[in-house]
């Protein structure tokens, strides 16, 4: 099939599909008239029974906790797959192959990048730890944490992304985060009788130590996402470094 016939056939199929979808959305509730009931039930139940003020995190790690466990494994598998694929290249070239030298980053990049690493790590901890109180949580915080590695890279501080060094540390970080969430799931299954049942002391809503297992899940996922996203970024950067600039 030539690209042209494929484009024509695809356009016809998409026109039909799009038309059906347009008809379908006119059957939805009008925009702004949320029909419920689940969001309203959660808004009524969670502050009272879970002492969590952030409904989104409470859903992710408590109400829908089992589903999040599955999503976490998708993330873990995707990171492992990307890292394995990118490493195949490195094995071909050999770990000790001479790598083309990178141009020295400018003074501005080194200063700003280096100065921002610590504040970004603090932001990572803040966003992750307050996930059950205010907007934020493990998924958002983890990406912020991975950003710290990019800044360090921009500042030219991670020239030695070799196996046994930074890569291994990131692998362990990701695995520990994933294992912690799994341990939380199995632990609650054994101790409370249902997976991710929130059976810990709930405390008072709005306090840092409250909402039972929700902040634990946030921390575990925050560590895993930070390690996983940073690992993928580091593998891509390492891959780019191996390519000879032509």
């Amino acid at each position, binding site marked *: 099939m030539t690209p042209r016939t494929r484009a024509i056939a695809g356009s016809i199929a998409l026109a039909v599909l799009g038309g059906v979808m347009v008809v379908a959305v006119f059957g*939805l509730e009008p925009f702004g008239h949320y029909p419920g009931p689940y969001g309203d039930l959660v808004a009524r139940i969670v502050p009272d029974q879970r002492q969590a003020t952030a409904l989104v995190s409470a859903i992710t790690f408590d109400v829908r906790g089992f589903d999040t466990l599955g999503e976490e494994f998708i993330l873990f598998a995707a990171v492992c797959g990307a890292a394995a694929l990118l490493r195949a290249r490195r094995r071909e070239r050999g770990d000790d192959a001479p790598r083309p030298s990178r141009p020295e980053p400018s003074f501005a990049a080194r200063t700003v990048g280096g100065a921002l690493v610590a504040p970004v790590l603090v932001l990572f901890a803040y966003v992750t730890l307050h996930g059950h109180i205010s907007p934020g949580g493990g998924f958002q915080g983890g990406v912020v944490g991975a950003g710290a590695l990019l800044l360090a890279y921009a500042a030219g501080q991670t020239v030695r992304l070799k196996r046994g060094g930074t890569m291994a540390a990131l692998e362990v970080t990701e695995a520990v985060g994933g294992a912690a969430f799994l341990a939380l799931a199995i632990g609650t299954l054994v101790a409370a009788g249902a997976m991710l049942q929130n059976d810990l002391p709930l405390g008072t809503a709005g306090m840092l130590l409250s909402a039972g297992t929700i902040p634990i899940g946030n921390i575990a996922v925050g560590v895993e996402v930070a390690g996983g996203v940073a690992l993928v970024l580091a593998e891509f950067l390492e891959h780019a470094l191996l390519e000879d600039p032509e």
Partner: protein
Amino acid sequence: MSVLAYLVAVWLFVIGIYGVITSRHLVHLVTCLSVAQSSTYVLLLGIGYRDGGQAPFYSDIETGTPVVDPVVQSLALTDIVVGATVTALLLALAVGAHRRFGSVDPDELTSMHG
């Protein structure tokens, strides 16, 4: 226009899939897939929106205040992070395809057909 948000979702999905079908570059293809995927966020958040609803966080507002649906926000947020890593996996596959076939045009990866 009470269905505009939903129509945006339909448009993003259709244009993303059209890009996937007609793509001549694997990186472009992966990006188009992300565009199609983002239509689900627009649709979910559009369904969960309520006129005058507050953000679903009771840290600053009275408990019981009408809020927008937090369930769809939870779905969108986990999918954004997981989707980003899946995109990274697809890009790594694109790197591998370039290494194997010396091309990033999907039409030139012909030795896959035997």
